[in-house]
């Protein structure tokens, strides 16, 4: 991992189009940073992104369409729905 020391107001540039600006340090523990990136580059807090990523993986996949087909078949035939873990 690359580790850099930066002062407030200084900038880190990644490629030609991403700028990270150190804006403030509060209580010696909280760093406020500004991020400028292209609109198609998602920028998220890691812990939140990880939660959404896990949920998408749980919710998504080939089983999603199978489930929907099963529901549709059952609703048209009056059968019962299989449950997934």
């Amino acid at each position: 991992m690359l580790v850099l020391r930066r002062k407030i107001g200084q900038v880190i540039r990644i490629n030609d189009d991403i700028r990270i600006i150190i804006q403030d340090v509060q209580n010696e523990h909280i760093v406020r940073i500004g991020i400028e990136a292209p609109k198609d580059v998602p920028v998220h807090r890691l812990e939140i992104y990880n939660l959404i990523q896990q949920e998408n993986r749980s919710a998504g996949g080939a089983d999603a369409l199978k489930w929907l087909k099963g529901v549709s078949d059952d609703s048209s035939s009056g059968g019962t729905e299989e449950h997934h873990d």
Partner: protein
Amino acid sequence: MTAVQAVQKSIMTEAEPDHGGAFHFPQGMAGFSDACDYGFIYQGHGDIVCIQSTDHPEAAFLLTQWDEQRLGSVPTLPVELCQCIHANNQEQIMWMLVLNPFADHAWVTANVKAPVALNIEARMGLQYIRQERELDIRYHWQRQPS
């Protein structure tokens, strides 16, 4: 016309993903960032549709429309993300929820924290991770079909 009816009318097929009319998700979906183009599949079951990546078929999600009666007003998409899906204003955006039928035996859950914004006209979409802290990732949406 409801949101889902509008979607059904404009973007769905009944059996296979509509590759020709694929929706482009510039950011992909969280955890599936390489899957950026999705076709819509409607199986004829209520308000639930399936989106499936046209080149990464393992990326498939169930979506349903945002329900203002239950959830309140639709989210407001930040301007820079509106630009990302070529939306000039909030009215152009159709909000959908990602459903998870596998997380709970009794309930199909909905991810209110990270809904999907669609610009049907531009055929673009994105998953918007909302900043508010008190939002359910597994909101009890509907009982499992029985």
